[in-house]
C-alpha cells in the first residue's frame, strides 16, 4: 500500500535525525507520516512528533556516537559563543557611551576651577568637588 507523499515539512524534520536512524527508518517514517496525514492527523502534529523524536534520538547515548557527540557539542558551543558575541557586540556601544559619559561627568572639569581648599579672606574654605560641578555619581 503506497500512501500519498509526505509533505516537505515532514521530510525536513526527518533530516534532523542521525544518519543511522534515517538509513534504518527514513523511508518507512516518511510513508507512515503520509498515511497518518491522509487519515486526518495534522501535518504539523506529525512533524512535531518527529522533531521531538529526533531530539530524543540525539540525546540518547549510543556506542560509536562519540565523534558525532563531539561535533554536536562543538556546534552548540559555537552557537552559544556566537550568541554571546552578538549580545556583547550589541551591548558594547551603549556601555562604552555610558562609561565615557560617566567619566566626563564625574571628572572635575579642571583642578584650577574647583580647588579643594580655597583661601578666602585668610580662612581656608572647604569646597566639595562633587557639589562644585553638580555631578550625581
Amino acid at each position, binding site marked *: 500500500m503506497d500512501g500519498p507523499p509526505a509533505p516537505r515539512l515532514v521530510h525536513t524534520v526527518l533530516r534532523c535525525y542521525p544518519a543511522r*536512524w534515517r538509513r534504518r527508518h527514513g*523511508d*518507512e*517514517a516518511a510513508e*507512515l507520516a503520509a498515511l497518518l496525514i491522509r487519515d486526518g*492527523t495534522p501535518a504539523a502534529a506529525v512533524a512535531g512528533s518527529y522533531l521531538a*523524536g529526533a531530539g530524543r534520538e540525539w540525546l540518547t547515548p549510543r556506542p560509536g556516537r562519540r565523534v558525532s557527540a563531539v561535533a554536536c557539542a562543538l556546534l552548540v558551543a559555537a552557537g552559544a559563543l556566537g550568541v554571546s558575541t552578538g549580545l556583547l557586540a550589541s551591548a558594547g556601544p551603549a556601555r562604552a557611551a555610558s562609561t565615557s559619559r560617566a567619566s566626563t561627568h564625574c571628572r572635575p572639569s579642571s583642578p584650577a576651577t574647583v580647588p579643594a581648599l580655597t583661601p578666602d579672606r585668610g580662612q581656608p574654605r572647604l569646597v566639595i568637588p562633587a557639589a562644585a560641578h553638580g555631578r550625581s555619581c
Partner: protein
Amino acid sequence: MAIGKRDGQAEPDVLRRAGEASVLILVSLADGPKHGYALIQDIKELAGVELGPGTLYGALDRLERLGLIESLPADDRRHPYQITRPGAAALRVHLDSLERVSAAGRLRLQLGGI
C-alpha cells in the same frame, strides 16, 4: 525495582520504567507481528491512545535494544516487528504487577468507602 514472581522465581519488572508507549507496543505485538502504521491503529483501538510517530520509533528502538522485540525482514519499505520470548515474559511480569496494584487499589477503595 518491582519484582514479579512466577514459578517461585523472582523476575524484575523491566517495563516498570519503560514508559506507557513501550508497554502498549508490547501488548499490541502480543497477538502477532505488526508494522508502524498497524501498531498506531491497533493501540488507538485498544487503549484510545494516539501514539505520535516519533514516540513510536523511539519506543521501538528502545524495545529492540532491550531484546524485547525484533524487526522482521522489510515488507516493501515497512519493517514488521514481533515480540520476542524475553519480551513476552517481561510483559507478563509487568501485567501481573499492574493487576496486583489494581486489585489492591480497588480493595482499598472499598475499605475506605469512597
